């Protein structure tokens, strides 16, 4: 039994749990939370698989995800914020 396999299985199970949360909802933010969890789990999974393949030079991929993953979530925050600004302005116009 390889130690990488054990961790990879744990990460995969967590991915399934996060996916169930994404499918169940109930609010859209639970889905965003699931996306966030899924993102970090993908980083971990890719790193572990790179070691399992014996090609640690592929850690570039995990690095790319670690850097870029936050952008999507910040975009969600901006989206929600603009919408609340817009709707409050519309309410003031009425």
């Amino acid at each position, binding site marked *: 039994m390889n130690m990488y396999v054990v961790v990879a299985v744990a990460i995969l199970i967590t991915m399934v749990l996060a996916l169930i949360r994404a499918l169940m909802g109930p609010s859209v933010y639970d889905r965003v939370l699931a996306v966030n969890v899924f993102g970090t789990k993908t980083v971990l999974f890719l790193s572990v698989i790179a070691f399992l393949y014996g090609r640690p030079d592929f850690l570039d991929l995990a690095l790319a995800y670690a850097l870029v993953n936050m952008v999507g*979530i910040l975009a969600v925050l901006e989206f929600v914020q603009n919408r609340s600004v817009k709707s409050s302005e519309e309410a003031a116009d009425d």
Partner: protein
Amino acid sequence: MIDLVIDVLSWILLILGGSCVLIGGVGGLRLPNFYTRIHASSLTDTMGNILIFLGLMLQAGFTLATLKLFAVMLFLLLTGPTATYALANAALLSGIKPDTGSTNDDNTEESPK
């Protein structure tokens, strides 16, 4: 001898990290409302990251891979909590109240206002 010690250490770290991640996943699924779920998954995420990457670093030895692993860990430690902050803020802005005790199933599929 030293190889054995390193192997045992990384086994321990990796298994601890794996269980941290797993606990976070279960918490994110089972806890009753949104803010408790975000709490569970973000905290365990950070701990799990540190443990798993330390375990992998021990295996990699003194190579470029260790440096990359360290960078990935560092960036995850920075971006993970930031993303969680942004998410909690977005939820608060759209009117999901952090209530105590009761389950808040009343905001089902409501698109945020």
